[in-house]
């Protein structure tokens, strides 16, 4: 891309306005509508050039800014003849109030972020499996069928999908296998078997990072001249064996 600008992404028009005001280092109460409006619209055209999506909220805010700007240009009208003092409220008033309100939560959000970081370092242990095993009752496997097993697994999957990543934020999980572990795994397999099929190594290791680790592990072992890979025939399964 030919643009050298790092474009911050803004959460919405308030976020953008807030950013512009901060950049100017002016008090929210003293903002110059003309200047802010100009900068705001410049920014929108930049977004347009970069083909970024400009949501309607940004456009509505542009219109609001222009409206306020034009109101500010009008002389403070006092219609004398009718003796009504139309002490026009500052046209910026509403916008300023909303910005201040927004700012409160933006700051609160930053505090939340810090808290979240700290608190993610606390761990809980899972609940103990607490079911009483009646000692006199011998567990028998009769009548236990494959469909029971599948149903059990299906339930777990459903539970996990419902749970998604939710609820347990600090649930612990050990690392997936490393390349060293993958190499050991292959070595172990080859200690037990004369040769191992390539495919076999990836069984039950369906996450992407595991597959990558194992693949790199194979390459490493070949480099170390510990194993070779070969095929009995063209297009037949790739096999690994120790040298």
């Amino acid at each position, binding site marked *: 891309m030919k643009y050298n600008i790092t474009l911050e992404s803004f959460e*919405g*028009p*308030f976020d953008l306005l807030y950013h512009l005001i901060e950049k100017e280092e002016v008090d929210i109460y003293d903002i110059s509508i003309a200047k802010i409006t100009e900068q705001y619209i410049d920014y929108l055209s930049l977004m347009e050039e970069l083909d970024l999506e400009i949501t309607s909220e940004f456009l509505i805010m542009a219109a609001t800014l222009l409206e306020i700007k034009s109101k500010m240009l009008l002389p403070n009208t006092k219609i004398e003849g009718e003796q009504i003092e139309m002490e026009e409220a500052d046209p910026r008033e509403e916008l300023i109030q909303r910005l201040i309100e927004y700012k409160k*939560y933006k700051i609160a959000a930053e*505090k*939340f972020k810090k808290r979240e970081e700290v608190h993610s370092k*606390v761990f809980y242990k899972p*609940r103990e499996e607490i079911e009483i095993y009646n000692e006199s009752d011998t567990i028998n496997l009769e009548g236990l069928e494959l469909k029971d097993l599948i149903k059990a697994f299906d339930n777990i999957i459903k539970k996990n999908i419902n749970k998604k990543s939710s609820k347990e*934020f600090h649930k612990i*999980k050990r690392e997936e296998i490393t390349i060293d572990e993958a190499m050991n795994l292959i070595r172990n397999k080859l200690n037990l078997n004369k040769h191992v099929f390539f495919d076999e190594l990836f069984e039950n290791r369906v996450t992407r990072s595991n597959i990558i680790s194992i693949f790199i592990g194979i390459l490493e072992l070949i480099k170390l001249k510990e194993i070779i890979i070969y095929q009995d025939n063209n297009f037949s399964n790739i096999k690994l064996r120790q040298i």
Partner: protein
Amino acid sequence: MDRKEIKGIIEGILYIWGESLSIDSMAEILELSKDEVKNIIEDMKNEFNYNRRGLQIIQIKDAYQLSTRVEHYDYIKKLITPKNNKGLSNAALETLSIISYKQPITRVEIESIRGVKCDKSINTLIEKGLVEEKGRLDRTGKPIIYGTTNNFLKHFGLRDINDLPKLKELKDIDLLDENNTK
């Protein structure tokens, strides 16, 4: 049953249960009044801290739970890698902070503060179990109102919603060190 014995039992129960356990349940198990249990567990909390134990007792509303200490993170990390939660996005955090301070609140109200649509962030927060529907307003359209969950408290290490820093204070601080927030 002396006080020390009760403390021992509570420790054992919290250990086995793993998750947060309410004062009510503990009182029932120990056949003690809730006040007694509350008194004892508050005592334990202080003792755990005072003795710099490896475990701490955290409170989530009227329930208690054991956890490890933040200070020991570097060691525990060597044994167990945490699920790498990237943490919430800025949009979600903004939405969450509005909900936490203004709850119960409708989507439209949140959107009018943020100035953008918030349905996606609200859904994320619900999925993560940080926010839930608290019912509907009895007005045209019957809009859903949202509030935070107990899990929200736990996620941010808050005892209850009053533990949140006061917004007013935030504003004051902010006016003072306007330049420190950049």
